[in-house]
């Protein structure tokens, strides 16, 4: 266990009694350990302070008033939901036609097409194409799970020791990626697919 792990486990009351005693003894004798420990304590103090932030009372009141106003509006217009469904279906039809036209018209670039859509149309389109978990469908048959593991291990420097210690599964690692890391993988998958197509 490295110093970071020991400190975090100590602050989290996750060390055994023996480990805790040893850690406290070392803390008294090691300047280096105390220095790192102090940095973690600073984070803890900061979160303790920010945990107790109070929201402005006028904002809380206005938020509650807005909620009741929304409820009243919904009660006043029971047909609104049905109209929304009707609107959604209409949009679906229009977008479906647009997609078909786009795919059969080589002159129109996909990027231009998507730029021409407003935010709601883009979301509709995306849901039609990918379903609810569309992002993960980007991983294609040309890109194996081994390739993905290789990228995660080499490019993103995932701490395998930690992952193994806590028995982390691959899908959990993938979900832990931040936007930049996900972009690295996304670009590699896209490149792999393009290379595959070029080879054909």
């Amino acid at each position, binding site marked *: 266990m490295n110093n970071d792990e020991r400190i975090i486990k100590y602050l989290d009351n996750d060390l055994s009694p023996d480990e805790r005693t040893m850690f406290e003894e070392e803390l008294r004798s090691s300047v280096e350990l105390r220095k790192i420990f102090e*940095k973690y304590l600073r*984070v803890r103090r900061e979160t303790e302070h920010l945990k107790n*932030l109070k929201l402005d009372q006028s904002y809380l009141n206005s938020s509650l008033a807005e909620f009741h106003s929304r409820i009243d509006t919904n009660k006043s217009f029971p047909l609104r939901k049905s109209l929304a469904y009707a609107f959604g279906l209409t949009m679906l039809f229009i977008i479906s036609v647009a997609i078909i036209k786009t795919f059969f018209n080589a002159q129109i670039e996909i990027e231009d097409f998507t730029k021409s859509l407003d935010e709601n149309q883009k979301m509709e389109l995306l849901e039609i194409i990918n379903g609810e978990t569309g992002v993960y469908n980007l991983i294609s048959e040309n890109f194996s799970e081994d390739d993905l593991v290789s990228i995660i291990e080499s490019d993103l420097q995932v701490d395998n020791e930690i992952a193994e210690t806590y028995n982390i599964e691959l899908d959990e690692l993938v979900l832990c990626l931040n936007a930049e890391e996900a972009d690295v993988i996304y670009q590699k998958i896209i490149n792999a697919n393009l290379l595959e197509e070029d080879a054909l």
Partner: protein
Amino acid sequence: MNLQADDYELIRDYLSGDEQAFNKLVRKYQDKIYWHARRMLGDHDDAHEIVQQVLLVMYNKLSSFNFNSSLYTWIYKITSTRSLNLIEKKKLTKIITFSTDDSAKYKGYNNIIENIESKERFAQMELNLQKLPVKQREVFILRNFDELSYDEISKLTGKSVGALKANYFHAFKKIKELMDKYE
């Protein structure tokens, strides 16, 4: 009267037709919902919208509330799920628009914070939290700000305690590094 019994009584009163009991529940949990969503999303407008959504769920679904669990865990579950869904939706929007703009403009709105000294400290922490991967951010917030135990977070997220601890470890370490960097 303990907190849980207090909640149960308010829920029963509300279900019996007492709207004021619902307002009392809202006043009790409104800020917790806001802060959780705000820390997850890093944006006031998004957090405000999540509060409205969660209140609506409470209003409509409290009748199906299981009195064997605590209300605050139930509320955190809804808040957390709604926040994650919104993050996912924004990611999808980014992909479909081929957006490469990661300038991540700070959209913090601090006028709702009463204590002036805290505003800057909150803004810096909010920026740091947004630099964490979502799962790490979630466990860090639930542990440090919402004060949930690993067991409670595990029930709420469906993740193993081991996985949560690993995420928490990385999150804590990264926040420490970010605070060092911007000191």
